[in-house]
């Protein structure tokens, strides 16, 4: 006697995020389309969340879990600041996220999260997580609905993987931003869940977070 699920506690919102770490900067980008099945709910919903310690959280998947994770993290970051009298560093925050997400191992936060920021040496760092908190420090990360379209391009452009010219290509902040915008423009032609606009944030020590909005196709 097998019963079908009448109501399922998860749902999947669209959203694609990209993060690239540089020597003294981090560039993160997110599209701004929010869909529910094949309807568009919002054209101005960004998946990048600014945390109080000046790092950027990218989170896609189930929006309820994304919002809850962000809220819980906000509280814990503040507690850390009050207890230790200094803002939490991005590597420490990454460890905290990993432990928090594994705490819900048997009813996971259904999100692909990435935390980005500048570490204590001022170098850009990107940490990627799976839905149960498996953490890896990466040079670049891509998560969300259009990840299969974008990740191979990042592999080829940043590390020269699987191309005739292997080897890392060093880029400046401005070149990275341009590359990411081009990648989003290409990917949105082939994905229904990607479009409307791409928000690109650049995080540096001197200027903090600079934001740029680039419009994309609305169909």
């Amino acid at each position, binding site marked *: 006697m097998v019963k079908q699920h009448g109501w399922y506690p998860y749902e999947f919102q669209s959203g694609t995020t990209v993060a690239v770490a540089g020597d003294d900067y981090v560039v993160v980008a997110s599209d701004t389309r929010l869909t529910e099945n094949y309807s568009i709910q919002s054209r101005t919903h960004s998946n990048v969340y600014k945390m109080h310690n000046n790092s950027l959280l990218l989170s896609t998947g*189930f929006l*309820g879990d994304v919002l809850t994770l962000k809220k819980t993290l906000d509280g814990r970051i503040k507690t850390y600041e009050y207890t230790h009298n200094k803002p939490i560093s991005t590597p420490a925050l990454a460890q905290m996220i990993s432990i928090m997400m594994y705490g819900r191992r048997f009813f996971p936060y259904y999100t692909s999260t990435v935390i980005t920021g500048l570490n204590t040496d001022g170098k850009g760092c990107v940490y990627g997580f799976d839905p149960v908190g498996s953490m890896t420090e990466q040079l670049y990360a891509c998560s969300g609905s259009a990840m299969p379209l974008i990740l191979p391009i990042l592999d080829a452009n940043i590390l020269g993987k699987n191309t005739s010219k292997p080897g890392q290509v060093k880029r400046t902040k401005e070149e990275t931003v341009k590359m990411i915008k081009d990648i989003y423009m290409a990917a949105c032609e082939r994905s229904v869940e990607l479009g409307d606009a791409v928000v690109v944030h650049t995080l540096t020590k001197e200027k903090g977070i600079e934001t740029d909005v680039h419009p994309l196709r609305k169909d």
Partner: protein
Amino acid sequence: MLSEFNSCQPCLDTINDKDAFNINNSSNIHTIIPLEADAERNIRTRTVTPIVTGSSVVAFTFNGGVILAADTLGSYGSLAKYRNISRIHQVNEKTVLAVGGDLSDADYIKEAVDSKVEQDTIQEDGGEMTPLALYTWSTRLMYHRRTKLNPLLTSAIVAGMENKEFFQGKNFIDLFTCRFLGRVNDKGSGYKEFLIITGIGNHLAQYRVVVITNDGVEFKAKEVQPDWSLAPLLHNTE
């Protein structure tokens, strides 16, 4: 101490159907109820299908504020049972709550919100719940219930005028301050947008409404011509 409507606790019925010896319920306060019995009881008493439902809610922001519309039908499956139900509820001078979906869960949410407004009123310090506060609280409530696998099967649409000080360059696209419109669904996913349509209207009406509001056009009631040609095709509207 004033007893407050505690909306995060489940309202369990008083019949202990696991109790084979029919012991009087008052003895439960002296016994420890094992976890399995509680979970099993929840499986029997939670609702996962809506019973009496309300249909679409349409809401959008315009030059002067926010406008909401909802029909007054409560459907019992395909029977148009309750024909005069108001699904738009005024919370306080600045906030309005509209609900779509299961109407008993909608009443639960309204009761919980009214209880919060009451707590605010009796403080008598002029503090009022703003739309953003209600929206955030509703998101937490819906998410909490979905985590207990006992969802509130409604969408809550929160609309109103926010305090001016709050919108200091926060939202990068919406340049018009103060107007607030947000939606929370039954799983705790919430978003804010200038146009929100829930229910079947989302698939039918959206393009027509967006044409009017996309540029933040000034709302003039005399010039809007409603198109009723779709009305005979829709089952859940009055």
